[in-house]
């Protein structure tokens, strides 16, 4: 089962932020990405919830990785993820009631969020706990940044506000489309194009200066 060479914890952490960003590079977890990014507060709560679930699921999976049977591993992943998602869901309902109402079904839907099952499969079921935790944190930071960037564009253009506070002058005609579902697709598409363009540019300049550390 040993792969030739697995990334170190630091590599895992850095990879999650940009080179393997779950939203812009892996294009995973699109459902909450599109649905809860019409304001920053909701997007950040979702990112926090995903971070908690991903961290816990990765750590548990990594701890029991030697006991996993290949054909039963997905069941174990799903079981672990579902447990932590339920805990987050109940926690939000108890301490952030309005937010839990706003996020509605998207918190329980973290169970089927591919990011988490992907990290369990790719990293946590093969590497030790420290690496799995670093991987979870890196992916969570990458996910939070992606959600924040989309929510920033949508909230400021759609309502002229950030985190619920007015930042644009009242003359700004709120582009309602930005907070509606089409705005999510537009913003995601444009930002994804931009991020990939920048990454391509960076890697090609690195290639020119031969020996660059990619």
């Amino acid at each position: 089962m040993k792969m030739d060479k697995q990334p170190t914890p630091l590599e895992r952490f850095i990879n999650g932020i940009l080179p393997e960003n779950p939203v812009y590079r892996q294009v995973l977890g699109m459902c909450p990405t599109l649905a809860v990014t019409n304001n920053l507060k909701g997007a950040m709560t979702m990112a926090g919830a995903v971070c908690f679930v991903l961290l816990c699921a990765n750590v548990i999976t990594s701890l029991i990785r030697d006991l996993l049977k290949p054909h039963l591993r997905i069941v174990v992943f799903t079981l672990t993820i579902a447990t932590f998602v339920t805990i987050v869901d109940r926690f939000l309902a108890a301490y952030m009631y309005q937010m839990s109402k706003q996020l509605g079904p998207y918190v329980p839907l973290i169970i089927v969020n591919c990011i988490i099952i992907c990290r369990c499969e790719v990293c946590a079921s093969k590497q030790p706990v420290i690496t799995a935790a670093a991987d979870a944190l890196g992916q969570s930071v990458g996910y939070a940044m992606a959600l924040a960037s989309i929510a920033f564009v949508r909230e400021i253009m759609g309502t002229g506000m950030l985190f619920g506070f007015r930042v644009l002058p009242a003359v700004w005609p709120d582009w309602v489309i930005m907070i509606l579902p089409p705005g999510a697709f537009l913003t995601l598409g444009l930002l994804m194009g931009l991020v990939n363009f920048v990454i391509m540019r960076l890697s090609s300049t690195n290639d020119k200066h031969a020996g660059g550390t990619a």
Partner: protein
Amino acid sequence: MNDSLNGKNSGKLRVKKNFMIQAWLVLFLSVFFGVSLAAVQLTLSPKIKANKLNETMKNVPGLLPGHYAPDALKISRRFLTAVSGGVKKSYSLFTAMSGKTLVGYVVKASGQGYSDSIDALIGLDASLSRITGVFILSQKETPGLGGKITDPEWRAQFIDKPTDRPLKVVKTGARASNEIDAITGATISSRSLCSIINQAVSDVKGILESNEKSSQQVTGVNENG
């Protein structure tokens, strides 16, 4: 897999291949996670219930006729159960008094929506003849379509509807006094909410009116808040 296995090994293999033994980790984790979730639920559910009740209480004054400051009203809660067609339905009834006068009632009712149950608050005036407001406490309808049942503009249609006839959802512009415009693309959600309201209004009206009669017969007292 291998023909040269001897008897002892194949016995071991059979035990190894037994589904229950292979799945021991799954079974163990299910029990372990189940117990932890039960503990979380036990710890947090009073808090969640209190949140829900708080929200209900906060919304009750806005659903009553007239404008009252929230603390000018005395709101008391009781539970009603109605049996219709062999199905038991229970409601929370909030009675709002301003001093000694009855301001109105708010009924908390729930029923099946398009995707999950809908919890709604329905305001009724003191004589139970008009609906004075509708508020959605919780719903999981399709976001953007059925989810619009929470829109204040759409809910405003219910204000001042008479309760003598059941409400009806129409798609072509409401004309009659008991007609409600459906949400485009979410006729089922609109209908579900209307039938929840109809059922709740008729049940509560039935209970309160029969209560009133019986209490008049027994004690002669008219007012039973």
